[in-house]
Every structure is written in C-alpha cells, then in structure tokens.
C-alpha cells in the first residue's frame, strides 16, 4: 500500500509539469465529531464509533490517450490506508467502455456520491452504512457498505436519446465478498484490507449488472430510475451464496433533490452445530437471512452557501441469529435525520446533523430514542 501511496504522490507531483498527458489531481478530507446520547449499552460495550473520526482521500485521473484513461485513489479511514480505485478505462465509444482493475462495481445511486465531499451528512444512508451507525457490530453495518471496491472487470456505457433521455448500463465480474465456511455473515473487512483483497478466497467471480434511465423534465428538472443486482458465493467452497438487488429513484426539481433507494440482500450461512441459535434450526445444516435497507431524503439549498437535508432511513433483518446476539429473528432500526451544510469557503463546508434512532429489539426499551449529533468539516480540492 505504501508503494501505491508513493506512486500517487509522484503522479500528483508531476501533474503540473507534464503537459503531454491530462491529469486531474483531486482530494477531500472530512473531520467529524460524533456525539451520542448513550454511548454504551447495558453490557457496557460501546455501541458506535463516537468521538472524532477523519477520512482523507487523494485521487489522480489521467487521460493517457483519447480512449484510455486511468484512475488511482488512495484513502485513509477506519481501515488505515486503502486503495478503493486503481483501474483503467478503455473507451471504445460512449456506449462501450471496458473497465479493468480495482473499483466499486456499478450498484445503486448513492455509491456515485460516496465521497464525504459529495454528500451532505457526515455519515451515509443506512443501507450503505460502513460503521457509523449505532450498534454497527451486531448489525454488521448496512446492506452493502459503501464503497465496495473489488478486483475485476466491468463493461459499461451511456447513451443519450436526443437531449432528454439518458440510459446507463453496466455488467461486471469481480472477485466478490468474502467470508469463512462457518461465517454467519459477510466479512466486509476482508474486501478492504490490503492484506486480504489481493487474492480471491474461492476463485469464483461475483457477477452483477445495473441499468438506469434518466429523463429530463424541462430545463431544470430530471428524474432517474435504476435497478441493480449482484450474485456470488463468499466461502472458500463456493457453497454459500449471497444476492443483492436494489432499486433507486432520484429526482431534481429546480434546486431540490429527492432521492430514494431500497436494497435487499439474501445471505446464506451454515448452521454450525457448535452454536446455539435463537430460533429452531432448519435441520439441513444451512439457512439464510434477508437484510433490507431503505432511505428517502430531500436536499434543499436555501442559499448558495446553505443547504438543508431531511432523511428517513432504516434496516430490517429477518432470519435466525445466534443466542448471544442482541438482535432477534426480526429486527429493525429506524433513523430520522435533519442536517445542514454551510459553505465557509468554496470547497470547504461545515456539516451539522442530528439523528433520532429507534430500535425494535429488547422491548420495551426500543421506545427510548437514541439521539446523536454529527459536527464536521469537509474540504475538497
């Protein structure tokens, strides 16, 4: 990873001196303070990543030729230095682009804006949460924590029909998410850690596709509808499968942005006889759970400098769990967020958001709302 970081720095350093090839050097940094009303649960365990966190990203985009470009991005967050992007795009036409390397495959709408500089709150919608949610450990984060870089190949393209209708499509084969044969869920860290992402654990690719349609409704309005899906196996023996599907609808009406997404993941797991489960086991040695996630948000600029946001999001998990899990066979979490950003300088914004949380587990305690506040700044260049 140090070599990748060094290469990125060298590329950036040469960006202004070498004019023969177009290079764009960009980056962002977010510092966030997360305040929790109750930072520990009844067992005295911390329930969230509270306090100060920092996410830093540096990216270089290089147009090698008119048809060939490269993107390299290094970021530093919870998992240390990571390489979420290192790929080539070989573009034969707008409608036919071959992407090879390490990248987040096309899935959903949010992942396009996953960089902290490109969304209004310090955290992500719950379906895409990567550790900032309260009780993230028993929930194992969201449905599809974003970003989700992987090694592989994607063929994608875009086409405009006239000036009003845009279509986007993508199909891909990537290494896929990982876990052990006795894992009860995906091990997200194995997709992010440089020590484990290089070599696939089962040799069988995960495949997926996305299609989206954007329709312009007048000069200042547009509406996008998309559908995504991926399927693969995650264990070394290729016996345990996961499937993720999602639908997204986003609209822009003058300066108001409305976004909604729904994701669901069906996840197989082995009924390890050494474990005790809350519900009776199937007896087949294998079971599955479904994890649903949604968000609906409205983002409204009040001035050129101030933007407000309202969001409702949630997760729902249905399926057997081990006896020691704080979850039940049907668990849900609901969150309501009010946030705003203030541009202190162009490219430098303050982010403030308040969140109200409700959990379905451990009746009737769920009726006690959890409150949290994020206060952060994000800078881009």
């Amino acid at each position: 990873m140090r070599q990748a970081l060094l290469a990125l720095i060298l590329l950036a350093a040469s960006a202004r001196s070498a004019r023969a090839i177009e290079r764009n050097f960009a980056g962002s940094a977010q510092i966030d303070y997360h305040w929790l009303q109750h930072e520990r649960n009844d067992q005295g365990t911390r329930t969230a990543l509270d306090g100060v966190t920092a996410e830093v990203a540096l990216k270089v985009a290089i147009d090698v030729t008119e048809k060939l470009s490269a993107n390299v991005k290094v970021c530093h967050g919870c998992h240390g230095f990571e390489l979420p992007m290192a790929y080539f795009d070989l573009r034969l036409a707008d409608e036919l682009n071959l992407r090879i390397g390490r990248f987040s495959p096309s899935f959903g709408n949010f992942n396009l804006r996953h960089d902290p500089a490109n969304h209004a709150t310090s955290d992500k919608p719950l379906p895409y949460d990567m550790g900032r949610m309260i009780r993230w450990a028993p929930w194992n984060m969201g449905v599809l924590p974003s970003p989700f870089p992987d090694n592989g190949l994607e063929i994608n393209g875009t086409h405009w029909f006239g000036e009003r209708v845009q279509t986007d499509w993508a199909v891909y084969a990537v290494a896929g998410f990982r876990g052990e044969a006795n894992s009860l869920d995906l091990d997200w860290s194995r997709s992010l850690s440089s020590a484990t992402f290089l070599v696939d654990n089962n040799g069988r690719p995960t495949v997926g596709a996305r299609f989206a349609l954007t329709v312009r409704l007048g000069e200042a309005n547009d509406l996008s509808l998309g559908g995504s899906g991926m399927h693969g196996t995650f264990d070394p023996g290729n016996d345990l499968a996961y499937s993720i599907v999602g639908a997204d609808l986003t609209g822009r009406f003058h300066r108001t942005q409305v976004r909604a997404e729904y994701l669901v993941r069906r996840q197989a797991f082995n009924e390890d006889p050494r474990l005790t489960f809350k519900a009776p086991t199937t007896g087949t040695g294998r079971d599955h759970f479904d994890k649903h996630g949604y968000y609906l948000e409205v983002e409204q600029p009040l001035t050129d400098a101030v933007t407000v946001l309202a969001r409702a999001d949630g997760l729902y998990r249905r399926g057997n769990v081990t006896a020691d899990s704080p979850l039940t066979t049907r668990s849900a979490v609901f969150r309501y967020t009010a946030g705003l950003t203030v541009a202190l300088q162009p490219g430098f914004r303050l982010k403030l958001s308040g969140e109200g949380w409700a959990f379905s587990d451990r009746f009737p305690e769920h009726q006690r709302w959890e409150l949290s506040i994020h206060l952060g700044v994000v800078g881009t260049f």
Partner: protein
Amino acid sequence: MSADRAVLVVALLALLALACAAAAGEGLDPSQLPADTRDDYAVFARRCSKCHSLARALNSGIDRDSWWEAYVNRMRRQPGSGIAPGDVQPILRFLHYYTLTRPRGDGASADGALLSERE
C-alpha cells in the same frame, strides 16, 4: 432538558450562527457575470451541481480548453449525469470565460495564451 444538553444546544446554535455569518457560496454570483455569460453559467451551475459542489470544478486548477473538454466529457459520461450532448458547449464556453478571468494566487488573471487552442 439537562444543563449539559442545554449547553450543547446553545454551543451548536452559536457555532451555526458564526458559520452562517462567515458563509461564502460554492459558486459564482451570476449578477457579477457579463450578460452574455449568464446563460452559460446557468447551464454549468444546474448540471454540475447534481453530483458535487460547483467548487470542485471551479477549484480544479484546470487552465486549458482541451483539458476542460476532456474533464467535462468525463463528467458527461458519468451514469445519470444529466449532462446532455447539447449542454457541453455552453458549459465549455463558461469555463473558458472563467479560466480567463478567475482570480489566481498571484492576484493576476489567467494567462490568455494558455487558452489559445480555442481562440
């Protein structure tokens, strides 16, 4: 409301008021632009703010038309960008104007010679 929570709320409100007082926009003030550039800026502002702040483009440091062209076309090809083929020329016209007139670190405007490819 406990005293601690009241202090927290007051501190946040004070911070917010301070931030709003110090706020500076992410984009440009259209009224400060020449009349024949305002429509082009409107297309730029409308299309390019869909996925990111306008400052990301304005602060990119790009100073050549061919470079802007590659940059805008890369954005146009982003899924769901909403940047139609007919939007490209107005956006490039505005960025050409912006590159010529933007304030630079040395207090001078950009060197027009850098833009000779389009002039």
